[in-house]
């Protein structure tokens, strides 16, 4: 309910700012954004009113947003993904970066239950998948993949 209130206030401000921006456009360019934004504002006001009404009737035992352990893994995987894209673009290139970070992500997510045979099986399969994409996109379709420092 508090989340609904925060989201609705944010959306209300967001739509007001964008509605103000659409005044610079001509009629035909602005008509659809204005229509959508006005509709969004109406729905946001309904959401806000509903959130306020439900907030008054709330119970104290509300569920948590997400378990701390899960949140840790989500943030870790997200951070690794951002790092992977950065490193892929500047240092390692598409092939090496994808293989390295894919295997690291697998090892982190598998945790303590990881067996050596599973690790090897996944690594070989993942390397094969990445290699197929690298060859198909980079060599056959001539898509300019990130090269990094190597290839």
């Amino acid at each position, binding site marked *: 309910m508090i989340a609904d209130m925060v989201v609705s206030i944010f959306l209300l401000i967001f739509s007001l700012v964008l509605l103000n921006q659409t005044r610079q456009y001509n009629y035909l360019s602005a008509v659809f954004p204005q229509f959508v934004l006005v509709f969004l504002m109406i729905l946001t006001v309904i959401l806000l009113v509903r959130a306020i009404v439900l907030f008054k009737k709330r119970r104290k035992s509300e569920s948590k947003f997400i378990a701390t352990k899960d949140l840790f893994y989500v943030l870790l995987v*997200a951070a690794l993904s951002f790092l992977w894209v950065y490193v892929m673009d500047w240092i390692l290139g598409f092939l090496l970066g994808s293989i390295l970070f894919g295997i690291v992500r697998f090892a982190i997510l598998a945790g303590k239950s990881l067996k050596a045979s599973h690790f090897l099986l996944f690594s070989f399969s993942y390397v094969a998948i990445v290699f197929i994409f690298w060859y198909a996109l980079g060599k056959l379709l001539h898509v*300019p993949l990130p090269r990094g420092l190597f290839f």
Partner: protein
Amino acid sequence: MAKVITKIPLSLLAPTVIFLTVVGSYCVSNSIFDVYTMLILGLLGFVLRKLGFEAGPITLGLILGPIIESGLVQGLLIGRKLPQPWLIFITRPICWVFIVLSVFFLLWPVILKKRIVVSGGDQK
């Protein structure tokens, strides 16, 4: 087949899916910026999902939005001959058919809920 797919562990599925999403977003216009955008929007989608906002309507909006916009502008251009361009959307019988159908499908969940309440919750 579906049973096998649902039993694939997350640790195997997640790296492969992340790889495919990165490749897919990069290949749209060969730009790393698109990949960063995808990652940020993915995180935003995750937060919204946890807050109770469904991804389905957002995806539908992203796909149907440009189609609706071009249809609306085309309609308004055709309706320039009328006193008000907006009248083009209510002056033809086919428009009313679609308006009535839209209202019906908008109200259908409410009607269904009422019917279930009246019949004591037996209907599905």
